[in-house]
């Protein structure tokens, strides 16, 4: 019974920082300035369908690219000798130690019309290309910032896959690639699903990246929400309504994702 008291601080924390804000969002979304119930703002969200579609689309692409890059990286990491893994992991994580804004600013100067990349291309007679303020630049920013969140869960699942799994598969006639697809990929499904979650959720709700790398033309949901609370479009009720819809969308997508995650997975 006593143990219950130890969880009290955690419960307080949950209530103050999770439950209360959620309730407030719900409240704002369904009321107007006078505090009266209304569905106006929820239905207004429909006007921004194109922004929702763009956000989902760009963050899906970014998540997919992250997965394609992170999977082999995590795999190679997990098969290295144990004492080398720590160092390599640190190198992979290194960019994360830098401030998020700084990292993204760096890309602005790299991609700019007179930026380093166009400058270098110009020297070999190419370009200049329009790199910044494109949706491609936004995706690039997402991939760059969220890649470690894909690598880490993949690595931690793969690292637990015993070498005997490779031997057993090879013994039963699998070439190395067959082993990967018949054994290693299925065994790393839990890492894939949590990696996708950890990249997709922040990517779909990001606002700095699109602002800095996407220019005005690539507004995302995150930007839209930010404008309602802090920007000149000030309208917390609409902002809350958009947030609520976004939350529902994320929940639906995550529920679908989790269908692929075998619940009783125990890795050997």
């Amino acid at each position: 019974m006593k143990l219950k008291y130890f969880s009290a601080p955690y419960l307080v924390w949950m209530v103050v920082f999770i439950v209360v804000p959620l309730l407030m969002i719900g409240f704002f979304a369904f009321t107007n300035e006078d505090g009266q119930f209304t569905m106006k703002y929820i239905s207004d969200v429909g006007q921004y369908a194109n922004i929702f579609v763009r956000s989902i689309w760009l963050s899906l692409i970014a998540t997919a690219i992250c997965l394609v890059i992170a999977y082999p990286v995590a795999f190679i990491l997990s098969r290295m000798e144990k004492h080398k893994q720590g160092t390599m992991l640190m190198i992979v994580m290194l960019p994360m130690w830098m401030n998020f804004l700084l990292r993204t600013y760096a890309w602005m100067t790299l991609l700019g019309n007179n930026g380093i990349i166009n400058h270098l291309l110009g020297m070999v007679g190419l370009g200049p290309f329009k790199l910044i303020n494109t949706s491609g630049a936004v995706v690039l920013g997402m991939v760059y910032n969220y890649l470690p969140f894909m690598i880490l869960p993949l690595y931690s699942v793969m690292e637990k896959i015993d070498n005997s799994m490779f031997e057993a598969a090879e013994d039963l006639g699998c070439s190395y690639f067959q082993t990967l697809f018949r054994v290693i990929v299925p065994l790393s499904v839990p890492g894939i699903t949590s990696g996708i979650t950890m990249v997709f959720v922040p990517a779909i709700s990001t606002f700095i990246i699109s602002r800095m790398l996407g220019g005005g033309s690539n507004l995302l949901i995150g930007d839209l929400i930010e404008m309602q609370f802090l920007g000149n479009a000030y309208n917390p009720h609409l902002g809350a309504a958009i947030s609520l819809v976004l939350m529902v969308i994320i929940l639906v997508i995550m529920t679908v994702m989790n269908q692929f995650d075998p619940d009783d997975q125990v890795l050997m």
Partner: protein
Amino acid sequence: MENIVSLKNIIVEFEDGEQILKNISLDIKDKEFVTFLGPSGCGKTTTLRIIAGFLEPKSGDVIFDGKRINDVPPHKRNVNTVFQRYALFPHLNVYENIAFGLRVKKVPEKEIVRRVGEMLELVNLMGYEKRTVNRLSGGQQQRVAIARALVNHPKVLLLDEPLGALDLKLRKEMQIELRKIQQELELTFVYVTHDQEEALTMSDSIVVMNNGSIQQIGSPTDIYNEPVNAFVADFIGESNILNGSMLRDCLVEFNGRQFECVDKGFGKNETVDVVIRPEDVKIVPAASAKLTGIVESVVFKGVHYEMIIDGVDHKWTVHSTKAEAAGTMVGLAFDPFDIHIMKKSEE
């Protein structure tokens, strides 16, 4: 009969430079049941890994069906392994684990159903098809591991202590089943165990190993009746091992007494190991015996009694159907042909 697998001068070293296999040479005949027998850590699993291709020997040749296969990767060798630690696939259920090898080889679905069914029956796991392997007991997992390898009908099946986790009754049943399958399908089995009884009852030939080298290769009767050194004698069944010296052909001295024996060809006064099986020690009246001792303990072992008899220079283990009371003074006697003389092993 032809040799299906030959190892020629195999040496295995791990990073620290320690030799794990010290120049192993061995021929395994086609359709033969060969058992590697030896204490823990002697290199049995390592030898299997060489044959399966998971380990590259530092030097030496691995020959399969007349061809050198050192460079052939495991998946191209017509060999399957029952791993000591099972290595079942946790993402697949029992059925799919067993079917794995057949699916890789793109065997038609109908045949997969038939062969997996056969295997499930054989290892007595009908009704467990849909279970994930994590929800099986150790013994059940071990049986899945056997089925998963055997279903492929490889030319050579490597079994690394495949019955270790089973209870005595199930183990005996599986021993008989495995032997039957091996003979019916005419497969070559390379079987690892450290249970000498299992080795003696199942094998066509036994390879006794110790410390990374082969001590003796022979049929179960050869190994039991003519062990080449004290290690083999001791490992295959209990033995009384004493230091002795060969006075001349057919006369050996141990415990300060001289005994007639049947072994010849040792140097004069060469020190030797004298091996006498517990069941070959006869209990005689103390008055007329060359050696005497006091019965220290008597334990009933089912068919016989095991007595420890303290004769000043050596504690004798004696098996007899007749028990002597503890504390009695008894005499010990041996027939000349029951006294086995062996060269001292190098170590």
